[in-house]
Structure formats: structure tokens, C-alpha cells
């Protein structure tokens, strides 16, 4: 399973984040939220100074590009847990 993070942050911010936390997976930039909109995940005005951002969501996507597992938190403080995501990934054949 290959994790990939997507947000409206510009590449420099994502680079700072990945260096600070030590992430090894790609972090992709969607500054005008075009991809976020195509996935219907827009949180209009949800960011600082009213910027449009993504609402938190995770999708486990199989090779045929279909969703095998997803998680939409109802509370921004509650994140998908690593063990839940790994369990979902393990069920893929």
C-alpha cells in the first residue's frame, strides 16, 4: 500500500512538513483545490483567513482505481488510525 497525502498547501510547505515529521510518502499540492473539488471534499472557507481547504478523508484505492475502503471523520480532531488503514489494506487481494 502506498500512502499519498493531498492538501492545498504549496510544495514548499509540504516539504517543510515532511522534513519536520520525517514522512517518506509523497505529499501532493492542490493549491486551487481543483482535485479536492473533483473528489467532492471541498470545505469552503475552512482554512485560515477563509481559505478553501479539503475536509479530512482517506480512500484506499485498488489498481482498477476503485475505492476499497474510505474514512470520513465527523470531528476534525479524530483521525483515521494507522491500524485501521493497515487492516483495510491487508484485506486486499
Amino acid at each position, binding site marked *: *500500500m*502506498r*500512502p*499519498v*497525502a*493531498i*492538501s*492545498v*498547501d504549496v*510544495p514548499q*510547505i*509540504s*516539504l*517543510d*512538513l*515532511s522534513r519536520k515529521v520525517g514522512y517518506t510518502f*509523497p*505529499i*501532493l*499540492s*492542490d493549491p486551487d483545490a481543483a*482535485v*479536492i473539488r473533483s*473528489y*467532492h*471534499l471541498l*470545505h*469552503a472557507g*475552512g*482554512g*485560515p483567513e477563509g481559505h478553501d*481547504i*479539503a*475536509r*479530512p*478523508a*482517506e*480512500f*484506499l*484505492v*485498488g*489498481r*482498477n*482505481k*476503485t*475505492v*476499497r*475502503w*474510505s474514512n*470520513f*471523520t*465527523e*470531528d*476534525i*480532531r*479524530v*483521525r483515521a*488510525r494507522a491500524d485501521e488503514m493497515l487492516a483495510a*489494506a491487508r484485506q*486486499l487481494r
Partner: protein
Amino acid sequence: MVEAIKRWNFDVMWALLLALGALAANVAVFATPPLQSALPWVSLCLGILALIVLVRGLWRAFGESQIYRGKVLSVVLGLLTVALAGLMVFAFFLARKLPTSVDAPQVGQQVPDFTLTDSNGKAVSLDSLFAAESSEPQAAAPKAVLLIFYRGYW
């Protein structure tokens, strides 16, 4: 004349402790423990309970002041409790102010393609994510890609 000994007003103390409990539950959410999704509700309930107990404590301190002591302490602890519990209750509703996202891809549906820039300025497409890493010739192509949409780093 002998003054009757007044009782301590424990309600105000309990109210503050409940408010601190609400804060602790809020902090604990971020540690991603099991039953993590219940913790915001625990924080909300403790916060509301703190405010209810505080109301009783203030009633006793001022309405039954011949029985209970501690008017000044009640006000001081009360202000702290209102600030803390109020913040936790407010945080609960603010954290849940999210769009419904009913049209987002469901299990079994195909996801839209994309090409975005990574943190090194390189263009990355959804297709390329399913390919084996060219830097690791022994590594197999991934069976799945986990797309993590997040709010951003700020």
C-alpha cells in the same frame, strides 16, 4: 454570639475538576487511542456537567450563604470553569462543522484521475502512483494507493 460553622462549597471544586477532565479528554483525542472517536463526546459531556455543577455551586455560595462559605473562591474558580468548560463545548461544535461530502467517491466507485506537484516540484499522476518505484528495482508495484486528504499544515 457563636457563629455557626459554615460548610465548604465542594461543588465549585468539582466543577473545575470536571472542566479539567473535559480538557484532558480533548487532549487525549490526539494520541489516537482505541475508542478515540468517543473522546470528543466525553469532553462535551464533562464540559456540560462542569457548568451544571458550577451553577449549583454558585447558588449555594450566594443563595445559601449562611450555610456555605466561599463566595470569592466560587467566583474565581467559577470563572476558570466557565472559560475552560465553555471552550471545550465550543470546540466540540466547531470541530464538527464539516461539509457533508455526500458526492465523494463511495466504496466500489472509481476515483477521478489527477496530476499534482509533489513537495520536490515533480508532477505526479494517479497512474504513476500505481507503478513500481524506479529507484527500488526489487520493489513490486503497490496493490493499492491510500489517498489522504488533509486540511493542511498551519
